[in-house]
């Protein structure tokens, strides 16, 4: 008999995080597949409202692990709170959302439990009685099918959006308060506060048209035609992370998991390969034009229109065509 499948989730502003609902949807689907039960673990402080939400989901159990020392995330606190639970109940899988916070402590938890660690899964399926996980490798250029070997619990983190939150099956879950064994443990980090990462001056979320450049643009001195394109389209200029890291454009124009999330009517991706951390920030766009000299770049997997070519040739020609159209109309 398989152990249960757990989803470890958190609340934000009194509601389960969307990533947490996605994790529960995945746990339910995996448990169905394995013929076992799905359960949730809610971790943090001030969890009453989020606990109510869990009650309405098809789960064999929902543990609420509440403690003032868990109000602010620390790796020491979160690992200490989870270790005894997993050790006692021996779930087959513990699923987490692949967030910056879970990535920070998941490996430490796996070590403490001598569990397996499978980061950033985007799908699973059963093959010959075993579970095969899909995870992106090489910047999303390839997808790997991965199986786990050895005995014991496996911790899996799930890429954002891979398992839609609206897939959560409704039902009823018995709620149980569980003591968090975190008094006196070394939190391993002294959190002094939080600050804005320096974005905020530019709000790209309302833009109808976004012209985004990636590393493929090749340098700050090559931005002028792209800037002109943004002007001609009445759109905002945006960038992938390496462009910002290299200082070619300011951080406030970065799109992606550590930048802004945008949903324009049109997103032009110029010299952007389409790594998942970029895609999560822009996949809500209605239409995507991708221009990339590598026809196998993952950006084309989500593009509406694709041009396999050199952006330094296409963009000036596009500017010219737009100017002619404006002049001739």
């Amino acid at each position, binding site marked *: 008999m398989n152990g249960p499948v757990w989803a470890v989730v958190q609340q934000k502003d009194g509601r389960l995080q969307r990533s947490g609902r996605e994790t529960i949807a995945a746990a339910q689907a995996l448990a169905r597949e394995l013929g076992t039960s799905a359960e949730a673990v809610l971790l943090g402080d001030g969890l009453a409202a989020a606990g109510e939400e869990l009650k309405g989901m098809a789960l064999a159990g929902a543990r609420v692990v509440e403690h003032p020392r868990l109000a602010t995330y620390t790796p*020491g606190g979160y690992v200490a709170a989870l270790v005894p639970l997993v050790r006692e109940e021996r779930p087959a899988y513990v699923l987490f959302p692949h*967030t*910056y916070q879970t*990535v920070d402590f*998941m*490996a430490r938890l*796996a*070590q403490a439990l001598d569990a397996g*660690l499978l*980061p*950033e899964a985007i799908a699973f399926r059963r093959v010959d009685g075993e579970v095969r996980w899909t995870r*992106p*490798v*090489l*910047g999303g250029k*390839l*997808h*790997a*099918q991965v*199986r786990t*070997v*050895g005995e014991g619990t496996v911790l899996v983190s799930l890429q954002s959006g891979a398992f839609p939150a609206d897939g959560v099956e409704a039902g009823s879950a018995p709620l149980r308060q569980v003591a968090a064994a975190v008094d006196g443990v070394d939190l391993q*980090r*002294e959190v*002094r*506060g*939080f*600050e*804005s*990462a320096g974005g905020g001056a530019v709000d790209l979320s309302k833009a*109808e048209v976004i012209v985004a450049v990636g*590393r493929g643009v090749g340098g700050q001195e090559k931005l002028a035609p792209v800037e002109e394109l943004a002007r001609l*389209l009445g759109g905002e200029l945006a960038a992938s992370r*390496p462009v*910002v*890291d290299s*200082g070619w454009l300011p951080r406030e124009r970065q799109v992606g998991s*550590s930048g802004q999330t945008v949903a324009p*009517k*049109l997103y032009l991706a110029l010299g952007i390969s389409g790594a998942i951390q970029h895609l999560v920030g822009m996949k809500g766009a209605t*239409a995507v*034009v*991708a221009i990339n000299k590598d026809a*196998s770049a993952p950006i084309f*997997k*989500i*593009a*509406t*229109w*694709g*041009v*396999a070519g050199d952006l330094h*040739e*296409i963009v*000036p*020609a596009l500017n*010219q*065509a*737009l100017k002619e*159209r404006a002049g001739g109309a």
Partner: protein
Amino acid sequence: MKIAVCVKQVPDPEARLRVGADGAWIDEEGVAFVLNESDEYAVEEALRIAERTGGEVIAFGLGPERTREALRKVLALGASRAVLLSDPALLGGDALATGRALAAAIRQEGADLVLTGSASSDLGYAATGSVIAGELGWPHAWLVMGVELAEDRRSVRITREMEGGMNELSAVVLPAVIQVQAGINHPRYASLKGIMAAKKKEIREVAAAELGVDAGRLGRAGSRLETVSVALPVSGREVEWIAGDAAAVAAALVTKLEQEAKVLR
């Protein structure tokens, strides 16, 4: 201060990749290998801290023989020594197995601070640094965008990226493992002098048997993950390709933007 920095050699992100004959990884024939992007930033950060504290940087790399080139590059940038873990018994591991080997090698050398990149661009586990910390029993922090050594050199203040445009400001007691995110600094280029000097610097090879770790916990044998196959992703929606010379592509795009995306006034 003695600073260890872990660097991985990865396929050039620009490389055209083909699935290899075994179907489980890429065909490395003709593929250029480079230093993993966030590791370049980790190296720069290590050098800066070493320069401020009058310390030294030791580079650690686990991978096949070609990893030597990556280590040579770090030596050219200013590291004083390097340790190469190229024993076949150490290769093919998941983050747990790889981190275990690196931690054992670092323990032999001793260090006050370990820097790694935030994620490798090939396997992308974003975990190896945390595993090293766990093995050594040290604190760690992932996705670090700022490091400042305390006056007494017993802790570091860090700025850690979070989602939604926020940073966490915290302190971590040394020794610790800091997983550096790309963009934390502007990495230097190797000077000719540095490249020449690197040729004389030591790259020490360490075999699996010298690590003092049970062989069943290292490399492929110690790994809980096994890659069955790799393949091109299947796409949800089919892209509509626009081909032709630049002028033809531009004209076709204008029509799409006007009539279908409806973004032209």
